[in-house]
C-alpha cells in the first residue's frame, strides 16, 4: 500500500470545531466514567469512533534498554469482529510515524473498500514525559477531511488524558490493595495474637492483592515471592499468586530469571515478550523488589496477557512499584505478629511446662527416694518444647554433688568438674565433647552463655548454670541446628535452670532436714531415757527417805526444833520426788507416750489427808518472811460425803503439789492459799485459790500449754519453766479428769475435776 507522508496535521482543521467539542466532551466523559483497568482502551475507542475507524492502537516508546526505544502498545480498541493480526510488531506506517514523528497516511485506502480492515493512518504523538508515541487507525476506507481534523484535535488532548487515566488507575490499584491489606491487619487484630497469622491467611490475603494487580494491569499471572529471615540465602519461596492452586510454586532464586535479577539488583525490571525467559518465547514480564530498608525481602512479578497491550509499560511498572511498599509493610507486620504469637505460645507452653514440672517435683520430693533422672528429663522436655529450634538438651551435675562411684580419680578439689547426669532425647544430639567443654565454660563463668557453630560444627549451644543463691548444682545445655542462636533460648534455659536448681536445692535441704530430724529424734529419745533414768535413780531413794522420816516422826519424840527440821526434810524429799516424777512424765510425753495411771478409789478422808499433807509441805517450804498461808477448808472437801473418786493417788499428789508450788511462787505477801472443794455435774473439783500476779482471762487456756508463761509472771519473778500446768493437764486427762484456770483480777482459782465413781 502506498503512503501519503508529511501531510501537515494543522493544515486540514477548518470547519470541524463543532464536532470537536462534541467528541471532546465524549472523550473527557469516558475518562471520568471508565473503569481504571480499561480506561485507556475506552479512550482510544472514542478516538477511533470519532475518526470513523473500526480500530485504533495507541503506541508509546517501549520500556526496554534498546536505543532508540521502539514503539510498544499502550492501549487498543477494536470494533466488534475486528482483530489485529500481529499487534506486537508495529506496521511500517506506524513505525514511520513513530520514528519520524510525522503523520503518515496509507495511500490507496479508498480502493480497499470491502476488504478486511487495515491501517489507514498513523499519527505521531508526544507524551507529557517527552516520550514518543503514535496512534494507528484501522479501517477499510481513507480518512475524510473532517474525521482527520477531528482526530488531530482529539490527539492534542490525548497525552494529558492518558496521564489522567493512568493516575486514576494507579490510585485505584493502590487503594484496592491497601484496603485488602488493611482489612487483613484488622482481621488479625480482631482475632488476637496467633489467630489469623498462619501461612494460609498470609497466602489468602496476598493472593487477593495479586488478583487485583492482575485485573488492573491486565496481567496473565501475578506472583509474590517472600523470604523468611533465617531461610537459606538466595531462595525466595512463592507465597501467593493470582492463579489458584494448592501446589507449592517454584521459588525465585537470586540471579535467575527476571525475578531473580530484580532480587539480585534490588530495582524494578521489565522485559518485553519473547525476552523474558532465557531465549524462550514467553510473554512480557515485569517485577519489582520488596525492599525492607536495604534488604530485599521479596518481589512481585507480573506476566502479560496474550492480548493487547502484550507488554508492560513504564506506567505499569510505576503502578506496581506503588504496591510494593504496602506488601512489604504487611509482610513486616505479619512477621512481627507471628514472632509475638510464637513468643506468646512459647511462654504459655513454658508456664504450663513449669507448672507440670513443679507438680512432678513436689511429688518426687514427697518420696523417700526422689527420681532425679525423671526431673532432669522433665526439665529438658520443657526446654526442647519451648525453645525455638531446640533439638535436645544435656544436664551436667557439678562434681561436688557427684556420687562417689562417679567421682573422677585424681580430680583436684579446686578444679570445677562436671559429670553428665542426663541427655535428651539421648544419643544423636550435640557432640558430647563440645557440649561438655561448653558446659565447663558456663560453670566457670557462673553466667548463662551461648555460642553458634561450636568447634566448627553446625548448630548452636546455649548453657545456663543450675543454681540457687550462688549454690551451683550443675549446668543445663540446650542445642539446635540453626546457624544462629535463637533469641529466647538463653531466657528459657535460665528459667528452667533456676527451676531445676530450686528442686535440687529443696531436695538437698529436705535431705539435710530429714537427717537433722533423725538426729534430733535420737537426741530426744536419749534425753527422755536419761530423764527416765534420773527419775528411777531419784525416785527410789527419795521414797525411802520420805518413809523413814515419816516413821521417825511417828515413833520418835523430839524437841520442837528437831521436829520442824524433820518435817522440812520430809517436805523437801516430797518436793524432790515430785520434780523427779515431773521429769518422768516429761520424758514420756516427749516420746509421744501418755501417762498411765494406776486407778484406785479415794474417799473424802484419803483426799483430805493428801491435801493436808501437800499444804503442810508447801507451808514448810515457803519463805516465812513472805507470810503466805496454805489452808485446807475441810468442810469444803467433805461435801464429797460418801462418794468416791477414781484416781491415781501419786498423780493427784503430783497435781496438787504443782498447783501449790505455783501458788507459793506467784502469791502476794501476807495472803492465803485456800484449798477447798465443790461438786457439780462434771464431778468433784479440788479448788486452789490464791491472790497474786494476775492471769489475763484470755490466757486461761494458754496456761496449759507447754513452756507457756504469762507476760507478768515472766517479767516479775522470771523463774519457772512453764511445764507445771502442762504436766497437770496431761495427768488429769489420763485420769478422765480436767484442769481449769479461772482468773478474776488478781485472784486465780485452779480446779482439778475428778469424775465421781
Amino acid at each position: 500500500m502506498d503512503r501519503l507522508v508529511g501531510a501537515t496535521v494543522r493544515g486540514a482543521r477548518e470547519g470541524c470545531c463543532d464536532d470537536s467539542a462534541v467528541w471532546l466532551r465524549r472523550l473527557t466523559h469516558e475518562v471520568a466514567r471508565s473503569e481504571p483497568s480499561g480506561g485507556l482502551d475506552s479512550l482510544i475507542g472514542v478516538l477511533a469512533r470519532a475518526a470513523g475507524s473500526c480500530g485504533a492502537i495507541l503506541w508509546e516508546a517501549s520500556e526496554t534498554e534498546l536505543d532508540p526505544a521502539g514503539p510498544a502498545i499502550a492501549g487498543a480498541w477494536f470494533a466488534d469482529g475486528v482483530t489485529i493480526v500481529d499487534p506486537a510488531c508495529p506496521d511500517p506506517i506506524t513505525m514511520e510515524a513513530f520514528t519520524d514523528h510525522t503523520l503518515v497516511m496509507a495511500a490507496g485506502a479508498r480502493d480497499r473498500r470491502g476488504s478486511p480492515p487495515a491501517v489507514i493512518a498513523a499519527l505521531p504523538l508526544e507524551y507529557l514525559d517527552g516520550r514518543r508515541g503514535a496512534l494507528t487507525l484501522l479501517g477499510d476506507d481513507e480518512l475524510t477531511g473532517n474525521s482527520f481534523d477531528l482526530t488531530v484535535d482529539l490527539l492534542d488532548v490525548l497525552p494529558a488524558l492518558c496521564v489522567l487515566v493512568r493516575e486514576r488507575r494507579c490510585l485505584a490499584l493502590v487503594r484496592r490493595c491497601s484496603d485488602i491489606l488493611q482489612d487483613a491487619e484488622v482481621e488479625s487484630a480482631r482475632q488476637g495474637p496467633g489467630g489469623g497469622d498462619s501461612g494460609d491467611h498470609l497466602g489468602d490475603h496476598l493472593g487477593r492483592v495479586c488478583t487485583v494487580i492482575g485485573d488492573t494491569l491486565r496481567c496473565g499471572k501475578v506472583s509474590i515471592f517472600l523470604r523468611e529471615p533465617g531461610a537459606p540465602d538466595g531462595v525466595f519461596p512463592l507465597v501467593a499468586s493470582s492463579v489458584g492452586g494448592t501446589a507449592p510454586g517454584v521459588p525465585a532464586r537470586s540471579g535467575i530469571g527476571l525475578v531473580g535479577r530484580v532480587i539480585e539488583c534490588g530495582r524494578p525490571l521489565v522485559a518485553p515478550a519473547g525476552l523474558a525467559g532465557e531465549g524462550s518465547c514467553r510473554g512480557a514480564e515485569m517485577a519489582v523488589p520488596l525492599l525492607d530498608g536495604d534488604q530485599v525481602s521479596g518481589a512481585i512479578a507480573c506476566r502479560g496477557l496474550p492480548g493487547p497491550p502484550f507488554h508492560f509499560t513504564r506506567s505499569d511498572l510505576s503502578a506496581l512499584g506503588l504496591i510494593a511498599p504496602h506488601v512489604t509493610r504487611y509482610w513486616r507486620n505479619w512477621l512481627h505478629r507471628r514472632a509475638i504469637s510464637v513468643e506468646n505460645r512459647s511462654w504459655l507452653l513454658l508456664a504450663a511446662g513449669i507448672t507440670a514440672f513443679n507438680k512432678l517435683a513436689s511429688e518426687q520430693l514427697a518420696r523417700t527416694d526422689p527420681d532425679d533422672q525423671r526431673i532432669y528429663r522433665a526439665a529438658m522436655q520443657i526446654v526442647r518444647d519451648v525453645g525455638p529450634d531446640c533439638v535436645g538438651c544435656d544436664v551436667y551435675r557439678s562434681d561436688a554433688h557427684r556420687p562417689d562411684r562417679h567421682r573422677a580419680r585424681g580430680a583436684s578439689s579446686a578444679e570445677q568438674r562436671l559429670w553428665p547426669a542426663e541427655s535428651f532425647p539421648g544419643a544423636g544430639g550435640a557432640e558430647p565433647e563440645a557440649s561438655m567443654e561448653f558446659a565447663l565454660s558456663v560453670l566457670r563463668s557462673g553466667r548463662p552463655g551461648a555460642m553458634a557453630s561450636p568447634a566448627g560444627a553446625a548448630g548452636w549451644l546455649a548453657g545456663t548454670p543450675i543454681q540457687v543463691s550462688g549454690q551451683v548444682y550443675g549446668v543445663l545445655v540446650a542445642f539446635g541446628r540453626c546457624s544462629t542462636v535463637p533469641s529466647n533460648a538463653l531466657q528459657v534455659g535460665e528459667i528452667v535452670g533456676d527451676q531445676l536448681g530450686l528442686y535440687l536445692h529443696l531436695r538437698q535441704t529436705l535431705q539435710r532436714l530429714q537427717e537433722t530430724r533423725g538426729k534430733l529424734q535420737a537426741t530426744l529419745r536419749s534425753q527422755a531415757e536419761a530423764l527416765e533414768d534420773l527419775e528411777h535413780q531419784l525416785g527410789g531413794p527419795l521414797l525411802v527417805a520420805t518413809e523413814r522420816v515419816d516413821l521417825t516422826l511417828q515413833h520418835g519424840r523430839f524437841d520442837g526444833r528437831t521436829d520442824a527440821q524433820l518435817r522440812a526434810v520430809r517436805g523437801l524429799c516430797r518436793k524432790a520426788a515430785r520434780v523427779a516424777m515431773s521429769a518422768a512424765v516429761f520424758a514420756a510425753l516427749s516420746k509421744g507416750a501418755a501417762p498411765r495411771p494406776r486407778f484406785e478409789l479415794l474417799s473424802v478422808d484419803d483426799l483430805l489427808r493428801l491435801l493436808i499433807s501437800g499444804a503442810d509441805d508447801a507451808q514448810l517450804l515457803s519463805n516465812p518472811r513472805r507470810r503466805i498461808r496454805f489452808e485446807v477448808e475441810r468442810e469444803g472437801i467433805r461435801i464429797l460425803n460418801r462418794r468416791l473418786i477414781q484416781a491415781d493417788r501419786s498423780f493427784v499428789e503430783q497435781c496438787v503439789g504443782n498447783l501449790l508450788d505455783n501458788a507459793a511462787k506467784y502469791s502476794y505477801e501476807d495472803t492465803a492459799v485456800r484449798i477447798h472443794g465443790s461438786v457439780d455435774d462434771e464431778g468433784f473439783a479440788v479448788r486452789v485459790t490464791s491472790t497474786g500476779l494476775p492471769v489475763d482471762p484470755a490466757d486461761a487456756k494458754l496456761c496449759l500449754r507447754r513452756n507457756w508463761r504469762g507476760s507478768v509472771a515472766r517479767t516479775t519473778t522470771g523463774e519457772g519453766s512453764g511445764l507445771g500446768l502442762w504436766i497437770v493437764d496431761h495427768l488429769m486427762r489420763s485420769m478422765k479428769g480436767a484442769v481449769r484456770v479461772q482468773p478474776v483480777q488478781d485472784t486465780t482459782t485452779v480446779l482439778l475435776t475428778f469424775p465421781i465413781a
Partner: protein
Amino acid sequence: MKPFIVVVEDDHLQEALLEDQLQRAFPAARIETLVTEQEFRERLADFRTDRPDVIIMDVMLRWAFPSPTATAPPADVASGGYQRAGFRCAELLFQDPALHDVPVIYYTILEGGDLEPDTRRLSSRTTYVRKSKDHDYLARKVRDLVGPATSAPSAAKRG
C-alpha cells in the same frame, strides 16, 4: 577491819544455811543477804561507799517477789530473763569504776561447763564454786579473797 561479805541468793532454804556457815567460818565478818536482782540494783550505789570485800552471787535469780505495787523491770531484765541474772548483776558491778575490782564468786548449782560461755567475758576477779553440802571449799575461796576470819559474828540481813 571487819570483812564485808554480800550474799545474793533468792532461795530462802539455802540462804539461811549459807549465811550460818559463812558466819561460822568468818565470825568477824559482816554478812548481808540480798534475795532479788532488784534489791541488788538498789544497793549498788551504797556499795560505792560501803564496799564489799567479796560478793557471793547466785546465777539464776528472780527479779522481784510478786507484789501489787511492783514496778515493771528494766528492758534488759525483761529481755534477758532469769536464767543468767547473776551475770547481769556482776556486769553492772564491773562497769562501775568504783566497784569493778570487787571479787565475785558465782555460787550455783549449775555445772561449770554450762556457764563457760557467759563467764568468759567477765572480769578475771570472778570465781566459780558449785553448790554442795561441803561449805568448806566456798569458805577457802572467800578466805583467799578477804583474808582470815578474826572477828565475832555480825550478820546484817535484808529481805
